[in-house]
């Protein structure tokens, strides 16, 4: 077992983990952060996307020990002032989901994308979230939601 200290969604944790523990399993099973889901188990689907030190990563393809000393943000930590994050709100309003399983990863990947490109075109959104798969094929509304979320994030910064 190895001791790690991480900040997750603004709270500090110190835990013993096996080196083989994946970050997503640590988040879900040791911290109870079940908003982050496991989709494909093959690093393809992006459902488990979280931010590690501000960058979107697939938490099924990072070891928990690698997050030692880092800041992790999950879908559970992005609400602002008790309200939904602008990207969550946009997914809600534009129905950027069907079954909802891919949604946590879609939203985390989209926030990461908008961090680099505050005003992505439809094409850039499709390219930017290529690491996230929606098995319901609900991409049309997802892409619209990302663009609206981006617009709201730009507005929130002004």
């Amino acid at each position, binding site marked *: 077992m*190895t001791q790690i200290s991480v900040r997750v969604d603004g709270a500090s944790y110190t835990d013993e983990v*096996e*080196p*083989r*523990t*994946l970050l997503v*399993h640590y988040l879900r099973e040791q911290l109870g952060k079940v908003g982050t889901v496991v989709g494909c*188990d*093959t*690093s*393809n689907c*992006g459902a488990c*996307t979280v931010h*590690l030190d501000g*960058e*979107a*990563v*697939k938490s*099924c*393809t*990072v*070891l928990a*020990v*690698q997050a030692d000393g880092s800041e992790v943000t999950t879908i559970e930590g992005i609400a602002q002032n008790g309200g939904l994050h602008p990207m969550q709100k946009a997914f809600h309003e534009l129905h950027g989901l069907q079954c909802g399983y891919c949604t946590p990863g879609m939203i985390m*990947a989209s926030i*990461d*994308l908008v961090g680099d490109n505050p005003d992505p075109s439809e*094409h850039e959104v*499709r*390219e*930017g*979230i*290529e*690491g*996230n*798969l929606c098995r319901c094929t609900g991409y049309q509304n997802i892409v619209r939601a990302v663009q609206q979320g981006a617009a709201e994030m730009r507005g929130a910064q002004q």
Partner: protein
Amino acid sequence: MIPAAFDYARPTTVDEALQALAAGGEDAKVLAGGQSLIPVMRLRLAAPSMVVDLTRVTELRGVREEGGDDGALVIGAMTTHSDVVSDPLIAQHAPLIAQATETVADRQVRHRGTFGGALAHADPAGDLPAVALALDAEFVLAGPGGRRTVPAREFFVDYLTTALAEDELLVEVRVPKLAGQWGMHYEKFNRVAQAWSIVAVAAAVRREDGHIAEARIGLTNMGPTPLRATASEQALAGAVAGADAVAEAGPARRRGNLAQRRPQRQGRLPCASRPGAHPPGGQRSGRSPDVGVSRATRELVHRPGSRRRGVAGAARHRADRPLHARRRPGLGHR
């Protein structure tokens, strides 16, 4: 799935990493970005007894210049794909690397995956090995006895197998600066849902007075290792820089390009093959290289500056075309 248990070392210097690797013995694996290793460990296709995590070896990150305009770029093995894509030195002196790296997997994977890790993994379907080969890169390997430099042509030994010995680390890659009249392009054919290349071509061409002075062409996933299309390179050298020369250099040279050595297995053996990997080379039709070589070099002849188009961009391009146009076997796949 959860990986099998392993011992974990997290060195902060190259020397510490080499010591950990030596202590771990032959079942030790080096963890760079982990975007290939962790998936195969999860599927239990690899079960190393010791994992040496290079994430904190900060001396292996970053890009620097060596020498003047005739010099080289030195890319640290642990430089992430994201950092490569946004690096100003690479954009200026080796844009082919940035263009190909932009097509690797997706944003999340590019945040973690590393330049050196992708090369040391030596997946023939990976994008960077053929690029390194086309650019005549040199690989700097550190071992217990010091450092040695291996040219790209000798680094890729066989399927997922490199010249790295069990106790060695890839620390940096030296890429000659290609300035002036060089044009470069990476042309990739992949399925929409997967960023892995079906095949791809990395081409760099130097033009002089309307002629092709020199062409370097690397082939992705057309054999057990990345390959140089040497016959096409020779056919292009000295030719007028135009579509005719390119058309001639593709199909007419097919046999020559693919009749390359099939190296003997030696050096470090891979822990496992990538899940879902295609059978290595040899069994492919000889047709794909022609199409790829022609397209990549034609692209250069018409547009000497490199053109960027990511994976989803290509997919989108296809989606814009009518359905019947998408279903031409062997023609519509890109």
